[in-house]
């Protein structure tokens, strides 16, 4: 069975390729050297993490950290949260409406609807941001958090759409018909039968929409005007031609650790559920 051996080796090599940069990133986040490096070892430090809570005076004393604007970073992160508070529920609503119409509405417009609703997922992200900027600008809305929200919803609503549609297709129509036949009003059928059935899918769609909104860079960059978000701020920090501050690596490490914990917990949990 050599071919299967080769396949295994190849798979491990691929995983190594996927993880190596991440591990290097984590290593350099505890290295007292800026720009971040793993070869130029300057000693162990936690200051790239402490940046977020260290006293103002210590901050001033550090040659790298004093160039950074902590308050701005925090307020940009706050903007991201504000945006996702609007984007996630709105995306769920639009995705749900689209999913219901696409699965349950038998009509000739169905094919067209497919193309229209899925087209943002097929378009380069930058274009969505730009067109939101131009369109709302024409209506007199200045670029800012609002245009970011609109631009993000345009394509993020596609995730709930696909997830809910897959789920709806697995629900037999007879279930809704049976409830209707037993005398329930259409609204009650939706609330008691369809929604509970969709609930797990809605949950995972919400998580995915939240992540997509937080991490989005391409679309946001074009729609943001003078505003900033977590992702654009991180992106902006990297524009220094001499290398970015290792604070980014610290943030990245935290994200990696959170992701790993969440993913492991999820798979352990769902395995226990299944078994």
């Amino acid at each position: 069975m050599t071919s299967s051996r080769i396949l295994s080796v190849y798979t491990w090599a691929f995983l190594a390729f996927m993880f190596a940069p991440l591990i290097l990133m984590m290593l350099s986040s505890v290295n007292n050297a800026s720009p971040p490096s793993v070869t130029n070892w300057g000693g162990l430090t936690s200051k790239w993490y402490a940046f977020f809570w260290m006293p103002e005076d210590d901050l001033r004393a550090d040659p790298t950290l004093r160039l950074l604007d902590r308050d701005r970073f925090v307020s940009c992160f706050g903007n991201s949260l504000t945006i996702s508070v609007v984007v996630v529920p709105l995306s769920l609503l639009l995705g749900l409406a689209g999913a219901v119409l696409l699965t349950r509405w038998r009509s000739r417009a169905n094919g067209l609807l497919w193309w229209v609703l899925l087209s943002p997922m097929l378009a380069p992200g930058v274009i969505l941001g730009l067109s939101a900027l131009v369109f709302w600008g024409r209506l007199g809305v200045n670029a800012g958090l609002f245009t970011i929200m609109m631009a993000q919803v345009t394509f993020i609503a596609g995730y709930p759409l696909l997830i809910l549609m897959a789920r709806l297709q697995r629900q037999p129509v007879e279930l809704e018909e049976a409830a209707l036949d037993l005398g329930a009003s259409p609204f009650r059928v939706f609330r008691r039968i369809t929604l509970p059935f969709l609930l797990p899918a809605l949950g995972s769609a919400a998580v995915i929409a939240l992540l997509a909104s937080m991490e989005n860079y391409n679309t946001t960059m074009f729609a943001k005007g003078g505003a900033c978000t977590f992702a654009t701020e991180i992106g902006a920090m990297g524009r220094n031609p001499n290398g970015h501050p290792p604070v980014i690596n610290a943030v990245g490490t935290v994200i990696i650790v959170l992701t790993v914990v969440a993913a492991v917990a999820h798979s352990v949990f769902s395995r226990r559920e299944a078994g």
Partner: protein
Amino acid sequence: MRGQAITLDGVEVTYPNGFTAVHQTDLKVEAGEFFSILGPSGCGKTTILRAVSGFVEPSRGRILIGDEDQAHKGPNIRPTALIFQNLALFPLMSVWENVAFGLEARGVSKRKRKARAEELLDLVALGDQADKKPTELSGGQRQRVAIARALAVDPAVLLLDEPLSALDLKLRQHMRAELRSIQRKTGVTFIYITHDQGEALTMSDRIAVMNEGRIEQVGTGDEVYSAPKTAFAASFVGEANAFAGRVTAVENDMACIETPEGKFLGRNSASMKVGDAAVLFVRPEAVGFGTAFGNRLSARLVRRDLEGSFVNLLMRSDAGAEVAVQMPNVGTTPGVEDDARPIGFACGSAIILPEGPLARTGREVAAE
């Protein structure tokens, strides 16, 4: 609510894609009746049920429940309850919540709902399963939950779409009796759909035989079995040997038909005239060995299938037609290697009907 009568008045159902699944149908089901619709797959049985419960609007004609025209009434307003082919139990609700759902929709308090649900679950002998989820029940139990759920809304009409098709034979026989007794106890009108003729014959007050969107015959089990009105009804309900030919003589209520197997006499209940293309049907159990019959032919045994108390014999006549014979399993029956021997059937047990489409045999279905 006591059962109510259902009237289909010239109902025709055409689907949006232009396919007409039910043609011009008049039908009256009496209040409190156990009425079956029997027909092959795809003939439009489910469509009729869906029209009665309000999921499809007839493109022509009226549907009345009691004396009330049901046009433009949604399924949630009609006094019907439909038991779906796949049952459609709500997977996320417990058994008793399933049963009580109709009451919940009517705003009945939880305490009353639960009491009523338990009552109905007792009726279908599931009193101890109330808190399980439908997925934790067996097929037959699920079946009974669906029945209890439908009965909970106190319907005037219960519509059942092949509810027993997924069950094994023993359970099916048991459920037949159970359904029948529930129907007697509640007095609700049942419209029962099946393509199993045994089921229809054992349970129903009356049966409608349906083919390709048309009702061919309505009558009691006896009428449909012994006095079919069309070639399709004769061939679909029960086994029948068919001999096609032409009417050569008519006398009183008998007729003579000339077939490649010879001339046969049979009942002329369809008032055929001389020269008409016709088919003579005779049930396998009416065919016997010997020469003491009005209609005679000679055939050799091809196959012998033991069925328990019966044996089914497949014979081939001298002219090449297959003749099915069924006889009680008493004494000896001829072996395959034997020579041709005389067989025959009484004139009164044969019926002559106009030529028309026949039900497809198993071999034809398989060939598709």
